[in-house]
């Protein structure tokens, strides 16, 4: 028992330092150009200078705003349209086909169009994140809302609920697990779209910084940017599950 705990500790805590050490050694060995493949210590110092110059925080703030605005717009629209197509037959007939046709288009392929339509400003970033987030949230909401167990709806109606109360008190919460799943998948997609949008043309942002650092061969700054993006996306995901756990306590129990 004690031995296995020790083993577990080693297995969990060793890989990251070992990975960094190996990276450092290879990068410093002269095996490859150190400027193109900088070791973690150099990346860390690049990160430090980006941080104290204030550049990094400005970039993070810019990227974060884009992701949050696009994500909130995309997911709230996805939920609203999902409820409509999932619950109202005529809506499903009218828009179901259309949305199904648009859905398989990879969101990143809208980049040139977004730039033509909305320029290089913030709107085109919001638009791309919106497109990326909307479809998975819509399809999940649609599935959740249209597959609510019949007995829940019957129970509500036989307890006196009308259509509106049934929607708010039963159909929405019953499909919440689906909506949550769609919204969680969309977090990662929102970051993909952000990166595509910023690389295609922007004046600030973490992915923009990676892109301009590439033009001046600052691979250390590029790598620092990658790490920041990874951490941002991971924190967003953790924050999401934290809020779900806090405000939808039955979600974990019902699975």
């Amino acid at each position, binding site marked *: 028992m004690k031995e296995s705990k020790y083993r577990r500790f080693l297995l969990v805590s060793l890989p990251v330092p070992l990975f960094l050490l190996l990276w450092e050694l290879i990068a410093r060995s002269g095996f490859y150009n150190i400027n193109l493949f900088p070791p973690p210590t150099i990346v860390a110092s690049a990160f430090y200078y980006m941080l104290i110059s204030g550049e990094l925080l400005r970039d993070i703030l810019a990227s974060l705003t884009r992701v949050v605005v696009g994500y909130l717009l995309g997911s709230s629209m996805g939920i609203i349209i999902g409820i409509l197509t999932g619950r109202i037959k005529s809506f499903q007939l009218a828009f179901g086909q259309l949305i199904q046709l648009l859905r398989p288009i990879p969101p990143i392929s809208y980049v040139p169009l977004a730039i033509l339509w909305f320029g290089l400003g913030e709107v085109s970033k919001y638009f791309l994140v919106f497109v990326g987030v909307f479809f998975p949230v819509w399809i999940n909401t649609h599935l959740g809302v249209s597959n609510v*167990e019949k*007995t*829940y709806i*019957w*129970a*509500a*109606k*036989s*307890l*006196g*609920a009308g259509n509106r*109360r049934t929607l708010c*008190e*039963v159909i929405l*919460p*019953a499909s*919440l697990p689906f909506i949550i799943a769609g919204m969680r998948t969309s977090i990662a997609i929102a970051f993909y779209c952000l990166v595509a949008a910023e690389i295609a043309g922007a004046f600030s942002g973490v992915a923009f910084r990676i892109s301009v650092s590439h033009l001046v061969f600052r691979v250390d700054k590029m790598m620092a940017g990658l790490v920041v993006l990874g951490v941002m996306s991971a924190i967003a995901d953790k924050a999401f599950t934290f809020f779900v756990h806090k405000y*939808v*306590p*039955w979600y974990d*129990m*019902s699975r």
Partner: protein
Amino acid sequence: MIMEVFSNKGKIIVRNLSVVFKGNKGVHAIDQLNFDIQPGEFVCFLGTTGCGKSTILNVIAGFVHPTSGEVLLDAQPITAPSSERGIVFQQHALFPWKTVLANIEFGSKIHEKKKEERRLIAKRYMDLVGLSGFENSYPSQLSGGMQQRVGIARVLANNPTVMLMDEPFGSLDAQTRVIMQELLLDIWQKFHKTIIFVTHDVDEALFLADRILILTARPAQIKKEIKVSLPRPRTYEILTSQKYVSLKKAVMELIREESLKALNFKR
């Protein structure tokens, strides 16, 4: 019985009820069904699996529309679900996103009752079904028997005239089932609502009902009506009485005929 003086609401009349489900096969679930249920009566529908007995309940609840015929509650035709006809489902159908208390309060909330009043009503019925202390639990944290007790309390808190019960104890173990049946009889004796109870369990029907309507295999028709003249209040002890055993024998023979028919079993 004296009880019948208390309530004069909850009379159900069913005339020439037929239900055919649309679809490529067009399942004929109910055929020309006729029966009356008196206010405050406890009636069991007893039938084999898939005979259409749940469909009868769903029509009375207003979930399923008759293909032909009419269903009346206190002389009013039933067209839609309503809180005067509460239902306890086979798979409890409690809202998993609500706590036990919120589930029981659901009906009062829909009827715009004040918070204090809601709480008061809910607590009363939680006490009645012996669930005090579980207010803040979620349904998934309860055992099957407790879940069904919440289901019963949720319906009672809404004060319906008729309680519809769709094999509510079917998934419980035998011991828990008997305890739940006794609890239900207690409740019925207290409130004297009309109860329509669907089951395929002969013992359950005999133990609970004033009257058993035995259904044929699909399409459901009434094969035979049995008056259960066992004394009340009933406890588990009657399960071994002479009278009970002879009644059970008669009912089992009838239901067995239908089971064999349903299975297309010829010997």
